[in-house]
């Protein structure tokens, strides 16, 4: 899976992009976020408050129940502030 991070989530996690292989039990966005939190203090801190975390799968906004697989591009970022 290709994982992308933007804005302060990128700063806190420490990189903009990574390739990863999902463990078998991670099947949806909620499971992915939970699994990422367990990967270290930077991830745990960045993903502590999920009310300020948005997720896009293959460039569309999705909710926590959206299914994911290793073929997906998943982006994790804060609420947008353009315009």
């Amino acid at each position, binding site marked *: 899976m290709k994982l*992308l991070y933007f*804005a302060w989530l990128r*700063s806190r996690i420490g990189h903009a992009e990574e390739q990863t292989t999902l463990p078998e039990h991670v099947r949806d966005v909620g499971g992915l976020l939970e699994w990422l939190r367990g990967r270290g203090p930077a991830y745990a801190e960045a993903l502590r408050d999920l009310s300020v975390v948005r997720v896009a799968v293959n*460039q569309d*906004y999705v909710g926590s129940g959206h299914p994911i697989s290793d073929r997906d591009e998943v*982006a994790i970022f*804060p609420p*947008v502030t*353009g*315009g």
Partner: protein
Amino acid sequence: MIRVQREDFDTGAELDRLAAGDHSVGGVASFVGLVRDMGGPGNSTGQVSALTLEHYPGMTERKLAEIEAEANRRWPLAASLIIHRYGRLEPGDRIVLVATASPHREAALAACHFLIDWLKTDAPFWKSEETPKGERWVAAHADDDAAKRRWQG
């Protein structure tokens, strides 16, 4: 038309071009967003020396195209244009241009308002400000979500 670019744009030239040669157009509406020095909580202006706009290449263009298509479904537009900049910008610099052309002003004005409201909640851009205390990411506004909801239902 959608453009996501680092460079500045010429507002007058863009608006002229939008309706050029189409004599069914009765009006062009536009919104230009500028970099504002908001200061911090309790601060006056003069705190922000610059801001940097980050975006998600690919998804940005896709979301802007969706927003533009939705505006064209809702109103009879002869033409529409969204230009959004990214990179480092200073107070007073132009960030975004939204423009709509239509035979009638109601459609042009409403569609322009709709586009900027939706763009602010859906297009994946993030602003970080340069302040004397370092980098500060701009927080999203609940007002923006409320502004978008006005167009739903």
